[in-house]
């Protein structure tokens, strides 16, 4: 157990370090802004004095290390800074803009994950068990195509069929506070379907590869030669060893979800954090962009970290040290 604990601790430290490194990168965003930036944020009415005051407010006159520490300190207290947009008139804290949207995005991601994961694992298992069958080849061609085409094409095809030709759903998923769960689920149906399509394709292919990898090991042949029943071979012999790879697949796909969500939210005008980030980039609202980036990156790193740790914890060589 000692080696196991040490390995996990090492991974945790590594993850923490990654997050720290990311925060430095994100923080430097402000550093590299072109000189005329303050003027462009404040608009045409800016005078040299107001520009100077703005720079001072951002702390651009302080040394970078001090500013970084202050920024991190703020983050830890939930202070994500102040949005640039309309700051001359009504300054809005970034947290007020981002956090409600984050909730919406998490809702979308959770529903997608709940739908896509079981389907993908099941299809992946089937494709691996019936390798090179007609079913396998069909699924293979379908998933390869899904991965190769742009996400917005999948989205618009789904809109075309399910919202335009057969108007069963709305093509816009404008959630608002106070809706019931059923109403929300109905509204997110199309984005969830689109995301699921893309993610199932990825996850299924990786599941298939992982299971085929395990099934071709000599100990699986040995289990068969020992007369172990087929379902027993799968569940007792293959699955314990495939667990690590499969969790990896899931984490990877969920991490993929984090990115895929940006385009899909824009297509369906979904009030999530991806949409918010795109708008902020367009308006060069740096504090909001920074907050969104951090949220995406931390989610991404955490998911990968969890996958790593599960893979380590299910590895018998580490579980039972020599």
């Amino acid at each position, binding site marked *: 157990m000692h080696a196991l604990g040490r390995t996990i601790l090492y991974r945790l430290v590594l993850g923490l370090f990654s997050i720290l490194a990311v925060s430095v990168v994100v923080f430097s965003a402000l550093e590299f802004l072109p000189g005329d930036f303050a003027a462009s944020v404040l608009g045409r009415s800016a005078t040299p004095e107001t520009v100077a005051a703005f720079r001072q407010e951002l702390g651009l006159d302080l040394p970078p290390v001090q500013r970084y520490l202050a920024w991190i300190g703020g983050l830890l207290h939930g202070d994500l800074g102040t949005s640039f947009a309309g700051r001359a008139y009504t300054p809005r804290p970034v947290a007020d803009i981002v956090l409600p949207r984050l909730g919406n995005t998490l809702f979308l991601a959770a529903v997608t994950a709940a739908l896509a994961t079981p389907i993908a694992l099941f299809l992946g298992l089937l494709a691996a068990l019936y390798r090179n069958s007609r079913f396998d080849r069909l699924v293979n061609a379908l998933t390869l195509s899904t991965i190769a085409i742009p996400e917005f094409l999948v989205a618009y095809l789904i809109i075309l069929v399910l919202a335009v030709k057969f108007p069963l759903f709305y093509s816009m998923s404008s959630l608002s506070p106070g809706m019931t769960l059923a109403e929300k689920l109905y509204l997110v149906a199309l984005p969830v379907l689109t995301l699921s399509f893309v993610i199932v394709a990825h996850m299924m292919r990786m599941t298939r590869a992982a299971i085929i990898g395990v099934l071709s090991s000599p100990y699986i042949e*040995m289990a068969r*030669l*020992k*007369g172990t029943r087929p379902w027993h071979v799968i569940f007792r012999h293959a699955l*314990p060893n495939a667990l690590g790879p499969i969790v990896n697949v899931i984490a990877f796909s969920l991490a993929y979800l984090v990115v895929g969500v940006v385009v899909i939210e824009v297509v369906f005008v979904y009030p999530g954090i991806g949409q918010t980030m795109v708008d902020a980039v367009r308006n060069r609202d740096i504090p909001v962009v920074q907050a969104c980036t951090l949220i995406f990156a931390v989610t991404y790193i955490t998911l990968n970290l969890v996958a790593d740790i599960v893979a380590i914890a299910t590895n018998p*060589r580490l579980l039972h040290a020599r």
Partner: protein
Amino acid sequence: MSGDETLLDIRDMRIEGESDGQWNVLVDGVDLTLKRGEVLGLVGESGAGKSTLGLAALGYVRPGCRIASGDIIFDGQDLLRLSDAERCGLRGHRISYVAQSAAASFNPAHALLRQTIETAVQRRLMNAGAARKKAVEQFRELSLPDPETIGRRYPHQVSGGQLQRVMTAMAMHCGPDLIVFDEPTTALDVTTQIDVLASIREAVEAQGIAAIYITHDLAVVAQMAHRIMVLRHGKVVEEASTQRMLDAPQNEYTRSLWAVRELAKPEETTPSSPLLTIEGLDFSYGKGFVKALDNVALTVPRGRTLAVVGESGSGKSTLGRIVAGLNVPTSGRLTFDGAALPPRLEHRNKDLLRRIQLVHQSADTALNPRHTVREIIARPLEVFFDLRGEACDRRTDELLDMIELGPRFATRLPSELSGGQKQRVNIARGIAAGPELMICDEVTSALDQLVQEGILKMLLGLQASLGVSYFFITHDISTVRAIADEVVVMHRGKVVEVGSQREIFAPPHEAYTELLLGSAPQMRADWLTEFLAERGPVARQHAQSTERNGGSTHV
């Protein structure tokens, strides 16, 4: 356990395997019968179809293979006509299997005992308690250390020789009528192999189980089998009782299976000066590690062969790499042709690099798959002799003649050569540099006997004509006999014994040399019996064997 009853009858078996969309014949019309309690040895070189045939005895074919025709009658039932479930019910219970690599064939996720009793418990042949008790009993019979607790361990926690015995226990657990052993000791060192062989033989004999014993080593199978069948290219070459097969093999091919054993290098009578001297050499992988080499001293005579013999973990390859300049010793001195040999590769000049050549064990990884034979052999000529154009081509052709391939092989890629041809090209690249010392690292180990013989003879011929010295690393005693003038026996990083071939093979020996020489199977049917009688039965030896197995690194 009555004597004459036929247990297994395989008739006109044809098995095909698919590659690149074509079906090739792997087993071609083989008939095989086995009586109850009889042990049949199945011998052949790589690709002879012996494993495929062995698996067919369980009614099993590997993915990508199919049974084209034939019957497999086991105890009156035609295995091929049974349902999948019925076949599955026979496996592990009445017919079981012991695989070559125990380390890969045990599931890493479960403890050994659980895997041993799995079939019995799943089939409800015994309750879990009885099954466990029986397994422990068998562990004891098979001379495993700590039979009560070894089952709680996981596969990676147990050495290769022990794992192989646990796998035998697993195969015997349900009291089968037939066990197929597929090269169970091939991956083991000889001193480990002998204990595993003895345990398997004792256990199989005691319970009167019939067995098919598959191996490429006729000397091993001679100890185990009543009858031997020789396979080649999927066909039966010869079949006879063990004694007859050894005394009077009818087929030329059968004789070639022990080709290397017939070779013996005549003793050199003329004196020779030392070419390479090693003194007080220590080596460890980084600080705080155990010494991989400990105070090694030896001399390679000019124009002769020094064989460095030892088991895995003895440090023999590391020693070769130090001479080549790939590893840097912690301390010690190397003298080459009267001058100090710089330990680091960077400190050796071009001429020194040329004079010492290393030939790697595996030609598959030593030859760049994207280079033609000509490019491979010509490169040392370009680098060391500045040969270009026609002169270079002419010399390459000469070298190709010297390795008995000829210029027509020049345009081939390594993938278009057989294993033996590749190894010849690998050697030619070394020879092309015109070395004085050639380090040969197990260059014949992975090859079939006949191919080995050819390469050993070629090496001897090259030595006679070029006067090159060999630093020949091997684990195989018959190879030592075939090529060595001087021998160094190594064990766990230390030199155990040094001497001329005659001195080493004649008693008295150091204790380890004795063990090593004694453990190498000989071509006599009663060799193992005599060896054990001399040494005492396995059970009493188990303390000693535990110690050895603990040290082996075969997992």
